[in-house]
């Protein structure tokens, strides 16, 4: 409906069997058409918009508007793979008579997200031999010592292993922090615990025992997924629905049904209108219906990113996002100062 040509150019077209106009051109120095499209810092500063719709301990949902895809994608990529985080790296077994093999148990412990502020640790030096590598500045030691025993008070006819035995399930919460050096002081206010205490690590039966020490160090997600601070961080483009011709009556109801509830409203004249395109999942169902052909145009706004950051719990999502910004900035600075750049 919009006659503004410039505006239309900003829409990715969702067609029946393809997506067109996907490329983003909003980067410094680009100027394709006669009118000025070139990138300008002041213009960017004025137009950039951040809307936060949800922010809590584990999840953030915010809109990043009027930013180039490459920048938005860089944030996403950095959050997944380059924001440092602490995870178990070395597991030392003293005893493991459980059914899980040492390697498998170690792998499981490695994937447990830990509530440790990564800023409190230094990086480990991989070049050092293993016995010199870890110290109280770069390593957190966790212990896991569990023994399964029979519960003498269990009722006779009971078959539930949770009642029959003590410690029949080993959970992430059984990993206990063992302070080394001045760590007790440093982490006094922020106790070191797994983010999710009820992750099942292993099951035990009477007579079985696990005793091990875990060394947790700083790392990044591109090295191993366990170092990634996010479950995932991703974005989607803002859906954009254009009704080309009025849709009325029964047809409007059918039209409404092609979208998730709340996307399409019907006004008192029985005419369909776009109520909230943000709620659309872009299932393209409407494009299957012959009757709506040429009535509707689907699209997505190319520079409107609806970000979703799911933290594993070590850091808050905003902290992760800010870190990603800082890392991107550092990279840019590095490039600026890089001898090759000059």
């Amino acid at each position, binding site marked *: 409906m919009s006659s503004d040509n410039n505006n239309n150019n900003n829409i990715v077209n969702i067609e029946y069997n393809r997506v067109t106009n996907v490329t983003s051109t909003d980067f410094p120095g680009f100027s394709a058409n006669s009118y000025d499209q070139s990138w300008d810092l002041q213009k960017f500063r004025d137009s950039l918009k951040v809307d936060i719709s949800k922010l809590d301990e584990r999840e953030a949902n915010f809109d990043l508007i009027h930013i180039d895809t490459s920048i938005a994608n860089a944030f996403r990529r950095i959050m997944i793979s380059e924001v440092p985080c602490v995870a178990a790296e070395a597991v030392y077994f003293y005893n493991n008579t459980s059914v899980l093999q040492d*390697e498998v148990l170690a792998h499981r412990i490695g994937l447990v997200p830990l509530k440790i502020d990564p800023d409190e640790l230094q990086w480990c030096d991989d070049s050092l031999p293993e016995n010199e590598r870890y110290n109280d500045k770069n390593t957190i030691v966790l212990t896991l010592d569990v023994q399964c025993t029979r519960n003498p008070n269990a009722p006779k006819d009971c078959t539930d292993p949770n009642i029959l035995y003590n410690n029949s399930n080993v959970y992430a919460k059984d990993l206990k922090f063992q302070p080394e050096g001045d760590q007790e002081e440093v982490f006094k206010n922020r106790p070191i615990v797994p983010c999710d205490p009820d992750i099942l690590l292993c099951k035990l039966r009477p007579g079985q025992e696990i005793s091990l020490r875990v060394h947790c160090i700083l790392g990044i997600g591109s090295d191993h997924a366990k170092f990634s601070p996010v479950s*995932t961080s991703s*974005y*989607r483009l803002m859906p954009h629905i254009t009704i080309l011709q009025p849709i009325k009556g029964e047809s409007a109801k059918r039209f409404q049904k092609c979208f*998730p509830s709340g996307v399409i409203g019907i006004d008192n004249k029985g005419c369909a209108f776009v109520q909230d395109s943000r709620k659309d999942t872009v299932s393209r169902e409407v494009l299957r219906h012959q009757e709506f052909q040429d009535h509707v145009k689907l699209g997505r706004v190319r520079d409107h990113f609806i970000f979703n950051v*799911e933290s594993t719990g070590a850091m808050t999502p905003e902290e992760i996002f800010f870190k990603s910004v800082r890392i991107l900035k550092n990279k840019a600075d590095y490039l600026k100062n890089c001898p090759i750049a000059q």
Partner: protein
Amino acid sequence: MTDIVTDHSHHHIKDESFDALMKPVYKGKGLTDEINTAEDKWNLLPAFLKVKGLVKQHLDSFNYFVDVDLKKIINANKVILSDVDPEFYLKYVDIRIGHRSNSSSQDKIVPPHQCRLRDMTYSAPIYVDVEYTRGRKIIMHKDVEIGKMPIMLRSNKCILNGQNETDMARLNECPLDPGGYFIVNGTEKVILVQEQLSKNRIIVEADDKKHIVQASVTSSTHERKSKTYVVTKHDKIYLKHNSISEEVPIVIVLKACGIISDLEIVQLVCGNDSTYQELFAVNFEEAAKYRIYTQRQALEFIGSKVKTIRRQKLTVLQEGIEAIATTVIAHLTAENLDFREKALYVALMTRRVVMAMNDPKMVDDRDYVGNKRLELAGQLMSLLFEDLFKKFNSDFKASIDKVLKKPNRATEYDALLSINIHSNNITSGLNRAISTGNWSLKRFKMERAGVTHVLSRLSYISALGMMTRISSQFEKSRKVSGPRALQPSQFGMLCTSDTPEGEACGLVKNLALMTHITSDDEEEPIKRLCYLLGIEDLSLIDSSSLHLHYGVYLNGTFIGITRFPIKFVSQFRKLRRSGKISEFISIYTNQHQNAVHIATDGGRICRPLIIVTNGESKVKAEHLLQLKNGQLQFDDFLKLGLVEYLDVNEENDSFIALYEKDISNEITHLEIEPFTVLGAVAGLIPYPHHNQSPRNTYQCAMGKQAIGAIAYNQFKRIDTLLYLMIYPQQPMVKTKTIELIDYDKLPAGQNATVAVMSYSGYDIEDALVINKSSIDRGFGRCETRRKTTCVLKRYPNHTQDIIGGMRVDENGKPIWQHAPLGPDGLGEVGMKVESGQVYINKSVPSNASDSVLSQQSSQYRETPVVYRAPEASHIDQVMMSVSDNDQALIKVLLRQNRRPELGDKFSSRHGQKGVCGIIVQQEDFPFNDQGVCPDIIMNPHGFPSRMTVGKMIELVSGKAGTLNGTLEYGTCFGGSKLEDMSKILVDHGYNYSGKDMLYSGVTGECLQAYIFFGPIYYQKLKHMVLDKMHARARGPRAVLTRQPTEGRSRDGGLRLGEMERDCVIAYGASQLLLERLMISSDAFQVDVCNACGLMGYGGWCTTCKSSENVIKMTIPYAAKLLFQELLSMNIAPRLKLDDVFSK
């Protein structure tokens, strides 16, 4: 109905596992729900499997062998007499396996898992009761052990029989393990089902090129096997037999059998049919030519042709009588020299030949499944045991004779004392046959190799697939397509998809899901029943009326005629349906031959079908309701006459509806469930009816290579090599077969989120792109467990192998090589073993062959077991035990954890295999609106030519299932409907087609195409790069030729073969060729004497006794070797040396 539903104690096997399926509420259907017979009749299938199980054929056959056949065998070889003492006799009264006469319970035998671990044989003693004479007294002796019988697991002699899940766990056994195999010397051995042409049946064949028509019958009795032919030669008919030197004109044979009148011969062979009479007439001239008119003349004629060698000479007449009575058509016995039965048999064979001469369509089809019989473990064991038992008896008799021969014995001889001497023969004979697979039977001159196979424990499916496998006797090398082709009569009996590719294609088959293989049934009562039902006895039939009515054949033998075949057959069936005779006896009418055939023999494949009468299925909703409530069992359906077993021949005489809607008035039976045309292995494929058929066959081969969970006791097993998956998942898209065979409890694969798109170019030729984060999080991880066995031998001079401790360096720490060892010299559990380290520090005495007297036993030579592999392993288990022969047995299990790497092989369930082509970071992977990244990216070029539409539907169903929180079904000819699945997708805000809009992970922009995106079940196959990678710069060389060794295991070189050589020659790179073929291989400096052309050494020619013309040159060592070998056979190759570039 109540009296039928009384005792079901015999249905206890595998009860728990089927409980879920039999529960009142199952798959969202409660007791109160309406029962729809068309949909719910499939519940008969789990009921069938609950009673029968997947390997019931093996168990039934073994049970029949130990319970029935053994008694028959000792009855046939009952008495041992002495040649010396006519008073002496020993008689076998009874035989039992595993328990004594006074106790009803089984003896305590070493449980199967212990046998596996300790390399022992899982067997039970064979007890016999004997009656024999000692002097004048007759003595009864019970429970004499004559050997040990290997026991089939889960058979009724097995200690696992009837155990519940808890008991099984206590015995370290997996409750899902099907059993049906033997454990011999610690290895699990399966006796494969053998397919052969049916015995004692007439088969008519024609050779169009040679203008030959022949009817043949393979007679098989306990004593001998022989084949009799009635064959045409220049349109005349002859009888042919291996022990008769030439073909005998058929009229002479009939005359020898007592049919002297030519008229009667014509009546017996041709009946009233004038065309047949004309065709046959010429044979009378043939007999007349020999001037043979009487029975005596005929017998003498045949007698003169017999080529058997006997101890005492018989007259020609006696030979003739003997031949007719015993050698020709040996499975018929002629009592009191009454050859009438044989005469009829020969006449009928001749008639079949004449019919085929007249009409070429009257020949039989060898490949028709109804003409095949399956030989199972029990039958093979019985053949073997009878042979060994006869040998045992003759040895026993020889030793008795030896003692009785001695005059003036001081005490009365007790024959029982020498019975134990030979008992080892039976035990070791059985063990050897099962462990080597060589069945050599002296009686039948049978020599069969490869009867048994090691049970493949690669995955649960491979073990299961092996138990349902059928191997054909047909030669693999012959390039005939007939026996390999899919026979229409296989429908429902043998799996249509599961067969290997390559040379054994179509020869190795698999049983379908709902089949049963019959065991032998008594013939005699059936025969009497036939006469009661009005069959006219053959001895009373007038020859002239023989072919006027329908003949009745019992197991291929003519027993009489009936004037009312339809009435007879329906009465017979009524008796079978009411349970008066065994449900496995089949009866069918053959219209072409005017015959009613009844079969009671073993080895026929049959399957249950629902009976339909008057256009109505007998199984009604109320029955299915009672089945669900547990009031009815499958066997009750048989007893109530609602369901019956049909073998292939009877199936051909029936009109079977596939679905209830197809039932009309002519329909006689209704299929229980159409997906039972597939076997257990093919049943894993979701939507197989949408795939191109070879793809299903490929998946059947690959499903057996998939790594997954093997059994509940997998961590307790110590196998040579075991692959296990760390996090196996049950498939999102299941099939009913998957639930029935418990694949969902022991799965082999993971549900991977797949994006079908091209990515990076590392995905060409079916390669897969795998997400690194998925691997980090445990996708495709597996574990290998490898066994090393070590026996501490004892030597005759009282020395024995020992395990040494570890060697320590000056600091008291163990040296690097001994780091994994404990103080006992064995690797410690949990230690890491790297290449070059020792994990069993064994030493052998250096003087093992010395005599006992030299008491220097302290000399030992270290022979440690060293670990050699590119990757380190961990020690998982160390077992010390004592094997059968009292030697210490040490088994060490090494474990390796593997994450997927480049080149590891994966496959979906649709015959689409591919290797991992590249591992990509998660952030580079495309993602959808929800932020979901695929685990695997698959190239879309895999689809068009393969036409695996089933895989696409699996993806859509799987995606719908994940969104809906349900497991969807992809059962063959059924399963979740695509429309429903698409509906679910749309309801959850996805596109109906399963295609999503993705964002590129690299650029962050939307991809221009919609991507087919969703979960597909992927299997990791056992072929991993780590086991195959190999490179060599320098390394070991073969001793003889000094060329590099061959093969990865010997760190061998990579061969530049003939074809590669041709390329290099064609290119003209001669120096490269020289370098590859000589310098880097087996270059050798020789001293060649240019005078005599022979080789010398050290600059000296030994032939010329001079060093004048000796030239040093380099040749391949193999060439030098060739020259010397030629010299050794008096050929002198002389080298003439010259400059290439003459000056």
